[in-house]
């Protein structure tokens, strides 16, 4: 007699995640097949082995991993599913690599609506498709109600550097120019506008997007671009402080040149926050030799993901590794490391 599949149908409309979906039995197998395998739809995942064996092009292999625990799970401009693809793809491509494959690990909370899970998985599938990556292996765990926050997703990405150029903070030199690919702080403000006890109306959407195409345009046109990073948590300020320390240089920024939307400025103003410390999920910072900077900037501005790109600063020799800002007001100040989350000021 044939080994039958799980006898209950999966109610994707009104059903909920149950402990049994993580227990390794037929119910789990059904969930994986109907949700993940069907929607991520690629021949490697369809083999349903415990691992994916991959054929990679020649070049240096790049790997990055990122866990996503965002609240709220659905937000203007995206959701945890698309974010979990964009975040890891961006980490991979910042090296100059082409992103090829992703793994995904789901931690689901008992009771989470399956209809919402479907939306998340569809959104992941769409994001992966747009980024040209395949989700080839995965894992699902279910935790008891109250022990998770709906859905947590970890993704790991694999890519390959085919132009044989090593990029990173160690390649940065005094004199290099610093370019950002567009407006800062959109993601953080979009999320904050929805947080419990902080609802305010804004039309700002998260900038969550995969930057693979922008990066390949940039590296193709200006291979000299020596370091790229996506300024996510802690915003531009946190990322630049990290880079200044890793590269053992100082950084000089110009407030007048920072691309920040009026709405983001206004929201930060009444929340008492500094937009330079607010998160982005679809922007990059690029370091490039001075003589190539203008040409790189024009290439970026011709790309739909870099329309508002701007040169915002430069690198200088500084043993203290300070990040400084010339204010629009005409004075100088430091842009210091962030100390925990930005907390709103009382006055």
């Amino acid at each position, binding site marked *: 007699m044939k080994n039958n599949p799980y006898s209950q149908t999966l109610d994707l409309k009104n059903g909920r995640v149950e402990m049994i979906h993580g227990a390794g039995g037929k119910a789990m197998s059904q969930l994986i097949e109907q949700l993940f395998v069907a929607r991520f739809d690629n021949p490697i995942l369809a083999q349903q082995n415990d691992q994916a064996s991959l054929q990679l092009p020649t070049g240096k292999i790049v790997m990055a991993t990122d866990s996503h625990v965002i609240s709220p799970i659905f937000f203007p401009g995206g959701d945890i599913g698309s974010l979990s693809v964009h975040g890891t793809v961006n980490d991979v491509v910042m090296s100059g690599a082409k992103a090829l494959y992703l793994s995904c690990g789901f931690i689901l909370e008992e009771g989470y609506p399956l209809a919402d899970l479907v939306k998340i998985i569809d959104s992941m599938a769409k994001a992966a498709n747009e980024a040209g990556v395949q989700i080839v292996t995965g894992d699902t765990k279910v935790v008891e109600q109250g022990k998770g926050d709906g859905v947590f997703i970890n993704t790991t990405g694999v890519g390959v550097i085919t132009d044989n150029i090593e990029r990173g903070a160690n390649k940065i030199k005094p004199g290099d120019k610093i370019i950002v690919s567009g407006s800062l702080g959109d993601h953080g403000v979009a999320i904050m506008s929805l947080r419990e*006890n902080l609802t305010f109306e804004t039309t700002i959407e998260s900038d969550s997007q995969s930057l693979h195409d922008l990066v390949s345009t940039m590296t193709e046109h200006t291979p000299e671009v020596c370091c790229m990073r996506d300024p996510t948590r802690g915003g531009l300020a946190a990322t630049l402080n990290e880079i200044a320390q890793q590269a053992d240089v100082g950084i000089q920024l110009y407030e007048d040149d920072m691309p920040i939307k*009026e709405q983001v400025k206004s929201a930060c103003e009444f929340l008492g926050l500094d937009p330079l410390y607010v998160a982005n999920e679809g922007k990059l910072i690029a370091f490039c030799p001075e003589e190539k900077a203008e040409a790189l900037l024009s290439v970026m501005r011709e790309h739909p993901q870099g329309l508002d790109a701007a040169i915002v600063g430069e690198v200088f020799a500084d043993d203290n590794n300070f990040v400084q800002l010339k204010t629009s007001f005409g004075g100088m100040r430091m842009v210091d490391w962030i100390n925990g989350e930005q907390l709103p000021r009382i006055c």
Partner: protein
Amino acid sequence: MKYVDEYRDGKMAKQIAENISQAVHSDKTYHFMEFCGGHTHAIFRYGIPDLLPNNIKMIHGPGCPVCILPIARIDSAIELATEHDVILCSYGDMMRVPGSKRRSLLKAKADGADIRMVYSCADALTIAKDNPDRQVVFFAIGFETTTPPTALIIQQAQKQQVNNFSVFCNHVLTPSAISTILESPEVRDMGLVPLDGFIGPAHVSTVIGSQPYEYFAQEYQKPVVIAGFEPLDVLQAILMLVKQVNNGSAIVENEFTRAVTAEGNLKAKNLVADIFEMRSEFEWRGLGLVPYSGLRIKAKYQAFDAEKRFTLQPSKGRDNKACECPKILRGVKTPKDCKLFGTKCTPENPIGSCMVSSEGACAAYYSYGRYQL
């Protein structure tokens, strides 16, 4: 007008800075204290010192409500959350401030206490209504600016009979702190701190008006210019102070006319008078016991007074002896004169009151101005 960057115009800043340079007498040094943390923050955030001539020295006063709260009061707030099992609601920048043994609300929260960050005291009342089985305490701090909202919320709690709600009141008064500074021996008798004038509070003055400062101007012969928290306001106020010093005048001027009147907000003042009364003294971190400088909830509203509802243990928390905050707050020393500054005491690991909030003098020096030290 959006009130986001209209008062941050770089060209106008250059013009006012130029006017200041022309107005100052080169043989004189001008020492001005900005009382408020909001001004301190603006001065560093926009790099105002770079625009001022070298003979203008800014002294950063004690007007940061987070910084001045003594360790004992923070210990009590932590005790409320950990020992009395309440939901403690606090403004954001209070969360990291260390009490005894470096414990803070954030650390207590990590240890399991139910502590929630709120943007408004109205949120605390909502939390109380949503959790009728729990005691909810609002950790009220701040100067005259945040006092009226707390008063209103106590009034509403009484009207709506939200009996599981109470307020841990730590509201303090600006004029008594300014008096304490002016009365300190270093300023009054020994002349150690040359203090030529004050930049008066912005938001506080929208409530109390400009009148309360007349006393300082007359009694201590110090000019006061009330100024907004925007950088152009600060520069303009400095220019007005320089002119007063040059003319030998000591009057109260109002630069912040777009928000401040002579008598202030009468409705807010009446509301505060209905709910609160003066404590005979209140401890300020950095200044010690300051007479008639704090408020408590009146007896008729005592049902909403957390200090009456819960029995709190007296805390023996004391400031670190090596910390120079008391002298920094009075202008006797600057942050870089302190041995702990930037070494043992940093924004990640604050020891003294001036390092705990971004509005404190030491934190502002460290986070915005460290490259100059």
